[in-house]
Structures are given as C-alpha cells and as structure tokens.
C-alpha cells in the first residue's frame, strides 16, 4: 500500500476500535470454545472398578468443562444456532466410515405388486445429485442402536393394547428385518437392535415422497450395508463372508 493512499483514510476513532476489538475477539473466542467443547477421541481408558462405566474400554471424552459450560449455556442456543455456524470442524471426512451403504426402494401398487425398483445412489444420476443421494444413504448407515433394557414387564391399561416395539430380527447371517413385536414377546428377553428414530423418520419421509412422485400405493426400503474394507485386508484378507452385504428390510410403508 502506498503511503499516499493511506493518508487519504480518516483515522478510526479509539472508541470504535475498542468496540470492534471486543466484538471480534468475543466472536472468535466463542467459535474457538465451541470447537473445543466437542467430544474428542475415541480414546482408550482404564479407570478400574467403579459403578458408572466399564472399568476399561474405548470411549469418547467430553471437552473441558469451562468450554462446555459456555457452549451449552450460551454459545449454542444464542449464537451459533441462530447464525447457523453449528459445525464444530471435527470433519466426518477425517474419519473412516464403519459401513458403506446403498439402498433399494420397491414401489408397489394396491395389490402389492412391485411397480418399480429404484436404487440409491443412482448410478445414472449426475455427480451432484448422486453426491446428495450418497449422503442420504450414509444417514441410514449401521450400526443400529442397541435396544435399551425393557425394565419391568409392562401391563396394558384397561381396554387398551400395549404399544408394539419395532426391533431388528435376524433371519440369517446376512438378512434382518424390522418387525413390530408385542411388549410381552419372548424375543424381547434377548438383546436386540432397533432402528434409530432418525433413520426411521428419514425412511418414512423418503418413502412418502417416492410414493407421491411415482403414484405408488406403498413402498419398501431395503438397506444394503458392508463393513468398510481395511488396509489390513491387503495383508490378510478377511473371509469371503465379510465382503457380503447385510440386507436390512425396513418394512412396507404406506403414505
């Protein structure tokens, strides 16, 4: 910058300098603390016998208390969420995905005949659309949630039925099906997986959309997933079975 051009600028008043400094530092501090407050890891831990968690294992560690306190009480609700700066810069792409996923949708008519089968991500879609379809598919990715303990046996209110619970029921090593079962079903005595509420909402909404778009009476979504291949497989490839896809039937849904 030439000295002559600097001379043309009016000096910036000290009061404004202080105000701008406070705002700038405050803003960047909140952004920095927001990033710092996020969980880190996974780390190996060994805390010995205790009542709170397993004595050793792998877990994520929460951020420092001062950063979390400021973030939870102020930054998140009043600053980054309204400004939509909610990303914490712990990028998902830094991390290896545990599974790779694609899914198929079977669109059916009133009689239950399959009208059309759609695959997502669609090989024929443009790069941009395919990219978004990949994100959608990855949102349905396993692992599914472990079902929380059922507690005491539930009893229905007078004249009413107990609500059913949807669990993943294994049919064989490579197939599982989402099935509603009674609270009193013996299946619930064993440990089972359930679809996350997020995945279920997403599936229902997407199937509603596809039914509307294609004029179908109902639709069924099947998720195909495979555990991510590892560089270790270059040294000692795992058994052939590892490379087979797990089919997960989300069940038929009507809009």
């Amino acid at each position, binding site marked *: 910058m030439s000295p002559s051009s600097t001379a*043309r600028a009016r000096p910036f008043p000290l009061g404004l300098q202080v105000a701008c*400094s406070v705002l700038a530092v405050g803003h960047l501090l909140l952004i920095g603390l927001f990033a710092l407050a996020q969980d880190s890891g996974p780390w190996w831990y060994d805390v010995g016998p205790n009542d709170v968690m397993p004595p050793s294992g792998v877990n994520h560690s929460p951020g420092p208390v001062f950063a979390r306190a400021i973030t939870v009480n102020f930054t998140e609700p009043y600053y980054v969420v309204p400004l939509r700066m909610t990303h914490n810069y712990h990028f998902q792409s830094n991390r290896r995905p545990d599974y790779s996923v694609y899914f198929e949708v079977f669109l059916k008519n009133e009689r239950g005949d399959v009208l059309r089968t759609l695959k997502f991500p669609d090989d024929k879609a443009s790069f941009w659309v395919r*990219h978004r379809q990949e994100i959608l598919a990855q949102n349905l990715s396993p692992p599914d949630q472990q079902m929380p303990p059922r507690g005491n046996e539930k009893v229905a209110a007078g004249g009413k039925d107990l609500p059913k619970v949807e669990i993943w029921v294994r049919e064989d090593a490579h197939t599982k099906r989402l099935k509603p079962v009674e609270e009193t079903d013996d299946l619930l005595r064993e440990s089972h997986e359930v679809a996350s509420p997020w995945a279920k909402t997403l599936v229902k909404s997407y199937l509603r959309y596809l039914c509307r778009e294609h004029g179908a009476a109902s639709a069924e979504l099947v998720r195909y997933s495979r555990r991510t291949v590892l560089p270790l497989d270059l040294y000692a490839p795992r058994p052939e079975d590892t490379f087979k896809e797990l089919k997960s039937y989300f069940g038929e849904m009507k809009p």
Partner: protein
Amino acid sequence: MSNDRSNAGAEIGLAGNAWTRFWFTPIPTTGLHCLRVLSGLLFCAWLLSFLGNQVGFFSLTGWLDAEAYRELQNQPTPIPAPIGWSMLYLAGNSVALFQTMYWGSLLILLLFTLGVATRITGVLTWVVVVSFLANPAITYEGDYMLAILAFYLMIGHLMLGQWNGNLSIAERILGARGDIVGTRWLFPQAATEQPLSHGANLMMRLLQIHFVIIILTSVLHKFQLSDWWAGVALWYPLNPTLQATRESLIRAQSSRETVLFFLGLTGYLVLAWQLAFPLFAWRTGWWRGILLGGAMLGWIGAFFIFKLPLFGPFTVLCCLSFLRPEEWTWITDRLRSVWTSIAVGKSEPASKKVPVAAGTETNIKK
C-alpha cells in the same frame, strides 16, 4: 526505574500498534471485491447444482417433509445436523412458492456476485445460503463452510465505506456504486479510485482467524484418529468398500507397499500443511506458493479422492483472503494486462501483425 517504566510503556504502545495495524489498517477493497465475485460464483454453482431436484431436496413436500420435521423436533436423540430456521419453510406445501423462492435466491446470489446493492444483497445472500442448509438428511459439512463465507462477506459489505467512503445516503443503505463489477465501463465519469476501507480489513482478519481455527481444529481431530497416524487415511476413499472384493484386494497385494508408502507420505504432508498453517499463512514471498499451492492441491484431492465438491473451493477462497493489498493489485494488474493483450491481439488484423514482427526481427538482426 523511570527508564524501566518508559520501556514498559513503549512495549505496551508497540503491542497496541501491532493490534491496531492488524485489525484497523485501512486497505483497498480489491481483495474484498475479488473474494465476493469468486464466492458469489461458488454460491451460484452450489445452488444451481440442486437444479431439477430442488423441490425434492428442500421443500416441505420433498425428501424430508413437514411431518418428518415435526417428528424430528420431538425426538430426544440427536440428529446429524441441527434443524434451524430457513426462509424455505415459509413456502409450506406450495411448490409454486418454493420455486419462486429458489429462482429468487439464485437472482440474489447473482446480483451480489455482480456487486449490485451489496449491503442488501449481502445480507440476503447469507439468508439464502443458510436457508439451503435446511435439510439435515442431505446436508454435508461443505455446505456449512459456505455459510461461514457468506457471513463474513455480509459483515464486510455492511461495513464497507461507512466510515471512510464519502458515500451518498443511497450508497450507505444499498452499497457503494463502486462495488459493481465493471464500474469503469458502466459509469466512466464516476469511476474514481476507491477509498481505503477499515471494514474490508476487519472482515478479512475475521475470516482469516476463523479459517485458522477450522484448520487447526481439523488437524487436531485428525491426530485423534489412528488412521492418520498410520498413514492410511487416504486409502479408504481410494478403495470404496462397495466396489472392493476379496479378489481385488488380493490382486492389490503386489503393489501394497508402494501404494501405502505414497499415501502415508501424502497424508503426512496434509497434516504438516494444516499444522503449520498459522506459521506461513501471513508470510509473503515464496510462502505464498505453499499457501495457495497447498490449497489448490487440497481442492484437487478433496474433489478426486474424497469426491467432496465444496471443501476445495472454500479452502482456496479462505487462503486468498490472506493476500495483502499489494498482492491483489499485482494479480489484478497481471490479469488486466493479459486481458488487454488478448483483446488487442484479437482486434488487430493478422496482416498488420506480420510486418511489425518482421520489421522488429530485421532491426534486431541489424
């Protein structure tokens, strides 16, 4: 004792000067304008990439419909991306209104890119970018980076020229006429040299430091993951699971050492670039090659290896924000001279050019 005090006072004064120089030195607005045009083009390309599927992606009758949004708001479990506000919700179930909003948004982005009423279109651009983060089912991290860029460009254009710009009232509300791309051709009588801006510098500094926070957080996150330490993090996107078979992996065994050697080396170069970023980002000279060369390579890597379209341009734009005013001047002068030489070359008939060149050659021989 008094000598010590005066030394301490001088040191505080120097620190104060450094602070003021860093944040409040008025700078020419060339950098901000270039950044706006390039970011605007990126925003337009981003929004156009949804074309044909915009209703499915973002409307309340699309992939994630109104019923799903209601369900998600009542769910106790966290979802991948928070659902915030969006102007697109105002369209409700009306596809026509949604389409109007989409095309209106594109128009706003275009006007902002061209520099028309930047104070208004800057704010609207931020609203548009943030609004198109509405669907957590298809939003990815690159989208959020665009919102950061749009936010600082909005702040920069709101402040631009307010203190030092000698603007009319209309320009104070709408934005300076000098912001418009091609002002020299549109308003030749009014085309004067733009005054220096404190706001442009403040905005650039905020963007620079925010980007440093992003880069450092990202590299510290990578350091928490064993794949980056083992140098195999880049192997995964290059070997998509759904395409791999046991046989293909056995075939790849013969070249595994070479492949993992170079992938590990590349991975560590990425870590080194990110970790050292704050040390070279503000340096001039050949450090600029590391800054911009690294950003360009990152763009290529993010696109071809990770298949992520937005991280690359975002990184390049943020790295460009570190350029000093004289470097922007150098770049724009070079581009102008290249443009002029091309234009002159095109306008001159080929028959005229040959004798000049021949004459010059003859003179040189003599």
